[in-house]
């Protein structure tokens, strides 16, 4: 007899809110053709509801996790969890969405009537990724991934006047689908090897049985890691990132990069640390290898870029490596903290790029930042702090984040990885510093101050978060420490 799945509205309430919100935006747009302002308020309200619901979830999840009652955290017959890990990641996603939309709002407005579509796509993408981080089932995870990714492919191509945007979209789409196919093939092999799609089920299986065909599972893990490595732009699966970052609409790149990274790493952490924790001895060196390659390649390549967006893309590759050290370290709180911090900084940094490049996001070569410190001191100051935060300079949250993941990795016995990581972060300093040099130490070609729109709020928040959590990190660290996966 087929038992109908129990429905737990609580578990998907935020996602539902976002999805419905996306639909609502489209409907409202069609029906009333509202002014962009109105649309803005609507989206804001939707995100606020989503965030509020997430916080409500937290209360419930935290209790259950504390009481050890993990069963109650699983809903929809094991498809979805509402553990702290999921909720924390989801909140980060929603926050990044809010900030990202604010940063890209001028772009959205410039799209005119298509602005609503863009907004809806953003909301949908977030919904997908939100489901992805909450998935306890690999197929569910894949669904979330695809919902999110497909929306992102479209977003990448939204700036249709620009040839680069098209190129970015097709590249992102082809490679992304390819990676998705690889990922799902990995899932299929894991299923073939363990007989389960569920994170908990797989762990159970690996715990209970001697594995008959480990090679299948290992191949599965490898393909899953490759597929997700693509999403988080870890080397050598990173190749799309610079091109897409450069081509996609300036205002939205921050959002796109941030949510993909958060969701991707949440998935990697969940799969590797929960489902395959018993096989850690095998996958740890491989992940460490990916980590090293990402850090080195990302840092070194970022050093020679002449375009800020590409630079940030490669720095994202390096960051993927740093976060990987957290995965190697095996502690989710380090990874989550890093993700939260990095997502905010990334969105903030691209908000600056959006301001400098203009809403359509034409150029972003380093040249355009010349003398920014004189032209728009506040903007340059914010960018400086964000860059240094990403670089991991002490008294910024970036340092706390790096410190956390490095400590975890060291404790795990990966001292050499930490040493490579700290050296890579010095190289990383070198390219962040390059941008700062251009902004402050050269004279401006154009003295006209730049017009800053809603990006200012994004920047204020991002800078505030960077500094405050750099000096008083305990609040966020405590939350991250509580946000355990089931």
């Amino acid at each position, binding site marked *: 007899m087929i038992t109908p799945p129990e429905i737990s509205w609580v578990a998907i309430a935020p996602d539902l809110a976002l999805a419905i919100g996306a639909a609502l935006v489209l409907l409202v747009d069609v029906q009333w053709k509202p002014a962009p302002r109105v649309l803005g308020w609507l989206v804001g309200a939707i995100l606020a509801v989503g965030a509020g619901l997430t916080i409500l979830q937290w209360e419930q999840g935290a209790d259950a996790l504390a009481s050890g009652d993990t069963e109650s955290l699983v809903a929809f017959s094991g498809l979805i969890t509402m553990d702290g890990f999921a909720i924390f990641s989801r909140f980060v996603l929603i926050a990044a969405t809010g900030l990202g939309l604010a940063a890209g709002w001028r772009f959205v407005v410039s799209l005119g009537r298509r602005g609503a579509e863009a907004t809806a796509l953003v909301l949908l993408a977030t919904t997908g990724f939100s489901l992805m981080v909450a998935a306890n089932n690999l197929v569910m995870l894949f669904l979330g991934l695809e919902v999110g990714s497909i929306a992102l492919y479209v977003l990448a191509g939204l700036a249709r006047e620009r*040839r680069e945007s*098209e*190129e970015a979209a097709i590249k992102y789409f082809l490679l992304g689908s390819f990676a998705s196919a*690889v990922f799902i*093939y990995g899932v*299929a092999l894991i299923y073939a090897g363990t007989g389960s799609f569920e994170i908990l089920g797989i762990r159970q299986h690996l715990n209970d049985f001697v594995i008959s065909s480990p090679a299948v599972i290992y191949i599965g893990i490898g393909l899953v890691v490759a597929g997700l490595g693509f999403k988080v732009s870890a080397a050598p699966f990173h190749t799309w990132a*610079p091109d897409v970052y450069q081509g996609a609409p300036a205002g939205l790149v921050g959002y796109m990069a941030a949510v993909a990274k958060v969701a991707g790493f949440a998935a990697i952490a969940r799969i590797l640390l929960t489902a395959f924790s018993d096989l850690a001895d095998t996958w740890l060196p491989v992940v460490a290898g990916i980590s090293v390659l990402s850090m080195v390649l990302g840092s070194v390549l970022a050093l020679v870029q002449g375009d800020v967006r590409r630079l940030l893309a490669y720095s994202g590759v390096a960051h993927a490596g740093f976060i990987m050290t957290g995965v190697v370290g095996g502690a989710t709180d380090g990874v989550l903290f890093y993700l939260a911090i990095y997502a905010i900084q990334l969105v903030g940094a691209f908000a600056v790029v959006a301001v400098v490049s203009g809403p359509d996001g034409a150029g972003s070569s380093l040249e355009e930042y010349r003398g920014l410190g004189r032209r728009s001191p506040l903007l340059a100051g914010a960018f400086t702090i964000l860059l240094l935060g990403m670089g991991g300079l002490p008294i910024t949250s970036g340092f706390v984040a790096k410190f956390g993941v490095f400590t975890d990795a060291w404790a795990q016995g990966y001292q050499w990885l930490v040493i490579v990581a700290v050296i890579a972060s010095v190289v990383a300093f070198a390219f962040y510093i390059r941008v700062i040099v251009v902004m402050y130490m050269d004279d401006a070609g154009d003295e006209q101050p730049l017009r800053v729109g809603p990006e200012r709020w994004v920047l204020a928040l991002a800078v505030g978060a960077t500094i405050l959590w750099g000096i008083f990190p305990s609040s966020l660290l405590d939350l991250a420490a509580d946000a355990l996966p089931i």
Partner: protein
Amino acid sequence: MVPVGWYMALAAALFLIGALGMLLRRNALVMFMCIELMLNAVNLTLISAGRAMNDLNGQVAVFFILVVAAAEVVVGLAIIVAIFRRRATASVDELSELRG
């Protein structure tokens, strides 16, 4: 009865063919079809594995993948058409302005 291993091997072969096609062909449309081929290889794997283990989950998953594939087609074709309109080519090798 054909052992399940054969099905799996066939699926793997299909997957590889798809992957190689993706790497070798330069027409975006064909490349995309190769991806579809890969997805179907995954489907085959899932079905055979589910069948072998007498587990419905594998087979159910196939439906989801089919839907995803369909969604991808929609978006993918839209993007490809857009590009084709502007450049009158569907060759991805023409699209290499972003690099380095």
